[in-house]
């Protein structure tokens, strides 16, 4: 008897679930219909907005731009995993979107699905991250030049004129474009200069807790260092927590130089307070660039360049102003 009741409840819940699905499918269809009234249908594949402050700002920017008021019918899909993103891309292609906007989790593995998109007449625009695929497979890419970001940071560090650079290098998720670009510049410099050494090179996978443990382990080993080169703000924060606990001074004119990336507002405030030394910008505001491209393509125009690199700055704690924090903090 009990089982029967349970079975009935479960069955009715499932049925309700199906109905809910049915109605949402209906809603989706309605928007498609209105799509023919002039709305441009875009499918946006992004990384998880909770991944970092950068991603949160990026997602908010896209959501604000691609609205019905601006002439778009946008669907969003999020994943930090490449295979899941590819699945979403296939779904969007089946859904007949006009444009597929993509921020790929990994650079590899996109060829066949983009080929499918091309066959189906879906135009692909890459944002934020590049991929290893033939450039004929996408219309345009709006990217941060991560290698340039790394180079700007390393040039700044070289300009500090230390007699010896002993660097703790905390990397992002290995293989991501941000990690490769920001690591590349430092690796080249360390290989070229005799007074630049890497004390520890470890991936903390964008994770503050892991960064804290990594720096803690260097401190416990008693190794000396004078630079922390963290590939994002969160990891720099974790590293600084370990420094604070061990009584190692950091910031402008102190023992250890702290460098981060992404320009989170709280990170720039650390710069303003001179607790950190440098923060490299990674511009998350690509929506207006994408909007321009789509408008151009829709009006039958051609793009003057395929890869658009956004302007990005690097902030120095000695010159940063409150205005910078307000304007560039994310």
């Amino acid at each position, binding site marked *: 008897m009990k089982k029967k009741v349970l079975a009935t409840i479960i069955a009715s819940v499932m049925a309700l679930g199906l109905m809910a699905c049915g109605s949402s499918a209906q809603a989706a269809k309605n928007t498609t219909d209105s799509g023919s009234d002039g709305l441009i249908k875009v499918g946006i594949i992004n990384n998880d907005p909770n991944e970092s402050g950068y991603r949160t700002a990026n997602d908010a920017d896209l959501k604000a731009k691609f609205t019905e008021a601006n002439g778009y019918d946008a669907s969003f899909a999020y994943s930090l995993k490449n295979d899941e993103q590819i699945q979403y891309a296939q779904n969007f292609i089946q859904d007949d979107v006009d444009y597929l906007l993509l921020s790929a989790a990994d650079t590899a593995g996109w060829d066949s699905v983009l080929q499918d998109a091309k066959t189906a007449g879906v135009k692909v625009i890459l944002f934020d991250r590049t991929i290893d695929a033939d450039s004929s497979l996408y219309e345009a890419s709006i990217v941060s030049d991560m290698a340039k970001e790394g180079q700007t940071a390393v040039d700044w560090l070289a300009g500090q004129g230390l007699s010896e650079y002993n660097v703790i290098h905390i990397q992002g998720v290995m293989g991501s474009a941000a990690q490769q670009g920001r690591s590349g510049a430092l690796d080249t410099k360390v290989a070229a200069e005799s007074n630049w050494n890497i004390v520890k090179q470890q991936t903390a996978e*964008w994770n503050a807790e892991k960064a804290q443990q990594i720096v803690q382990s260097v401190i416990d080993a008693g190794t000396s260092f004078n630079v922390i080169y963290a590939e994002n703000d969160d990891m720099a924060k974790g590293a600084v927590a370990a420094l604070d606990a061990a009584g190692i001074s950091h910031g402008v004119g102190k023992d250890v130089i702290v460098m981060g990336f992404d320009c989170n507002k709280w990170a720039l405030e650390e710069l303003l307070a001179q607790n950190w030394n440098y923060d490299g910008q990674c511009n998350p505001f690509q929506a207006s660039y994408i909007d321009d491209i789509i408008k151009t393509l829709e009006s039958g125009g051609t793009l003057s360049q395929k890869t658009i690199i956004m302007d990005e700055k690097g902030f120095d704690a000695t010159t940063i102003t409150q205005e910078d924090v307000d304007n560039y903090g994310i």
Partner: protein
Amino acid sequence: MNDNKFKKLMSNQLFIPVIALVVLALINLINDPSFFKVTLGTNNAGNPVLSGYLITILDYGSELGILAIGMTLVTAASGGQDISVGATIAIAGSAMLRVLCGGNSRPETIQAPIIVAFLVACLVGMLCGAFNGLLVSIFKIQPMIATLILFTAGRSIAAWINNNELPIVPDPKFSYFGGFIPGIPIPTTVFIVAICIVIIALVLKFTNLGLYTQAVGINENSSRLNGINPTFIKFLSFVILGLCVAVAALIKVSRLSTINYSVIAKDIEMDAILAVALGGNALSGGKFNIWASILGAYVIQFLTTTLYKFNVQSDALAAYKAVVVIVLVIFSAPKVREYMKDARKKIIKVQKEAA
């Protein structure tokens, strides 16, 4: 006689984690004796603090040690594991920050006393535990499947609690829980673990929780016939784990005074389950030893810290832990145990014949 002692030692649940600890300690001693050096220094706030690898292990192993308490009870009572603890840490931590910061991501001062925020987090953690417990005990869903729900949805719920914002707690007092209290050189987390251990020890001594949990885990039906309510015991074990999760969340969030929903306490559920397994507890439920699990948790942190010291890439840590799991699983397999028993008997026989 000797053989008897050996048997007793082998059958003691603390055997595996202690041996693992000794092996790890020996490796480090041979490699670099300074591993065991503990020094007294001052932190940037000007307070005395102890530092060194051993302190690091005690400090960073705390969350896992606390989770091991609850996970052992859940394992013993339900014969399954809760894989949602990492996600519920995110939920409880997020709720704590929501109360502290009042929905504003950058408040000037904290909006509520820390104790209130902690109690809210406890409530939220226990609610999540109760949800899992309800599915497992009343709806008889397998624990791993039941907790899969919060495992999948938990981090999104955590983000939703704070409207996707990443609040930062402005009060330095909040960072004491995951750091140091001024004037006390031992990490606060060590005291928090000690308090948890004392509480659970008192509970096990003065209530029948331990006995009932074992009875339910060994045979649900016969325990029911003996007047124990298995449904309630299972439910209770999940609620206790929820409370452990809230305490772990306090430490995690306090370490950096902020939260990152997608990475906070990432993969900690696997470490917690591994701690229970390392403690020699049967993952199919029944008899259990909480102390062995807690020791297992510190063994895992010892291993992690050792690997960091040896410059192992942190994304490869999981592979080393997998090796430990493989060894454990092989040693606890009935076939292997039987084989080892036979082998020992043969050796003794040979020895006797020789004598």
